[in-house]
């Protein structure tokens, strides 16, 4: 019996039409997350194991090779040793990225998979946001990359909140937020280098159950600012969530009622903020005083 791996292929697609077909692939994996089927192949079995560690929580292996999208990682063997070769990442559109550092390739792959799932799934609604749990309610911080969400999420977790995600709020059809716990990407002071921190390393705990939203924080970092938010309506919160939704254009008819329901009983606060630790303390103090959350 052949021991060759069965390589994933996109449903309805002809055989490889991009340059990735020239490569010799030795390992493959087909997985499903929230109904989205993703195929991954590589020429290095050790890399495949590293990839598995970066897949979203709750992924399931597929027995069928038919998938909705494929990624291929070519790991350079760097021989002869004097010639450095790039590691390559392909997607269905062709060559997606190349880097001399395999960690960067894996990071790009991981992020691409999250985006792909978030845009394609019909089981959940992905909003770009940080999420923590506090007193059986979710605090959600919508915002795109580099908006300061991770810093604020990390500060809230250090203050005792439960970690749900620093990148994506994942809503179900009832408007509850599910955990999507990625390793936090925190920029180191001084060097400015980013490091991945599992929440446990910060002394935090991961959330396990879906939560209704208690508070939506719309904030922008401003050096030296003191957090003095104003209350907004739930309609304004829905707009902020739509503005950060990965599938707003693909499924607005389904998205709008879910978000409306999600924020119907939550407070919404808007305002600039200063340092994350101070803001986190102020947020949790505000919650303790407000009976709605």
């Amino acid at each position: 019996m052949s021991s060759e791996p069965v390589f994933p292929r996109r449903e309805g697609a002809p055989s490889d039409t991009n340059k990735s077909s020239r490569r010799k692939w030795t390992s493959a994996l087909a997985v499903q997350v929230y109904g989205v089927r993703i195929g991954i192949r590589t020429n290095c079995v050790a890399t495949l194991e590293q990839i598995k560690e970066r897949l979203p929580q709750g992924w399931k292996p597929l027995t069928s090779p038919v998938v909705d999208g494929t990624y291929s990682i070519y790991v350079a063997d760097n021989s002869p040793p004097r010639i450095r070769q790039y590691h390559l990442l392909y997607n269905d559109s062709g060559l997606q990225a190349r880097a001399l550092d395999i960690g960067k390739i894996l990071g790009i792959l991981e992020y691409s998979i999250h985006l792909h799932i978030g845009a394609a799934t019909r089981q959940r609604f992905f909003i770009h946001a940080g999420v923590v749990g506090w007193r059986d309610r979710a605090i959600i911080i919508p915002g795109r990359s580099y908006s300061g969400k991770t810093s604020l999420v990390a500060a809230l977790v250090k203050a005792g909140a439960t970690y749900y995600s620093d990148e994506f709020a994942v809503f179900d059809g009832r408007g509850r937020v599910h955990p999507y716990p990625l390793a936090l990407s925190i920029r180191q002071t001084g060097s400015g280098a980013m490091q991945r921190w599992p929440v446990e390393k910060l002394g935090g705990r991961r959330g396990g159950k879906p939560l209704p939203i208690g508070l939506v924080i719309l904030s922008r970092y401003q050096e030296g600012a003191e957090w003095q938010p104003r209350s907004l309506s739930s309609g304004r919160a829905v707009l902020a969530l739509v503005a950060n939704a990965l599938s707003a254009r693909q499924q607005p008819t389904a998205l709008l009622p879910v978000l409306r329901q999600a924020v119907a009983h939550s407070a919404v606060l808007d305002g600039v903020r200063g340092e994350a630790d101070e803001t986190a303390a102020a947020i949790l103090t505000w919650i303790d005083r407000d009976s709605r959350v």
Partner: protein
Amino acid sequence: MTTSFAPQARREGLVIEEAEDELLVYDLERHEAHCLERTAALIWQQCDGQSTLPVIIKRLQEQHSLAVDEDIVWIALRRLDRARLLEERLKVPAGLPRRASRRDMMRKVAVIGGMAVFSILAPTAAEAASRNVSCKHVLKSGLPENNQCCNGNKGICHITHDGDGVCGPEPC
């Protein structure tokens, strides 16, 4: 001059959700989402293509206890028109709104309250996940590498699954 004008609200191509006393509207054609505050929402809902402004005003006064006048309704109609929520583009008759000072008009709007129409453009999947709208211009000179930065040195540009370029969180 305005006694025969009967504004018509758009109904086709919209997803509408009621949220407390606001109205959420998603425009499927333009991929814009709007939040209409209470008064603006009530005025919009009265625009049935048959009710003239005097009828709308009377209805709002009697059924919703809103002290609106023609100036207020025109302000609301302008805002709804900007959001493309009327069936036809608004043609404001000459001489309207009446020659009140801007301060007086704003004071009227503030007293009535609930007149705002907030709007956003719904993002594509790539836009929703990146700080910069697209970094495809970075890619034209070659392939994204670990020293190929997005605008402001924030993140590496890379091609997403749909062929767009987006700045990821990876450090530049």
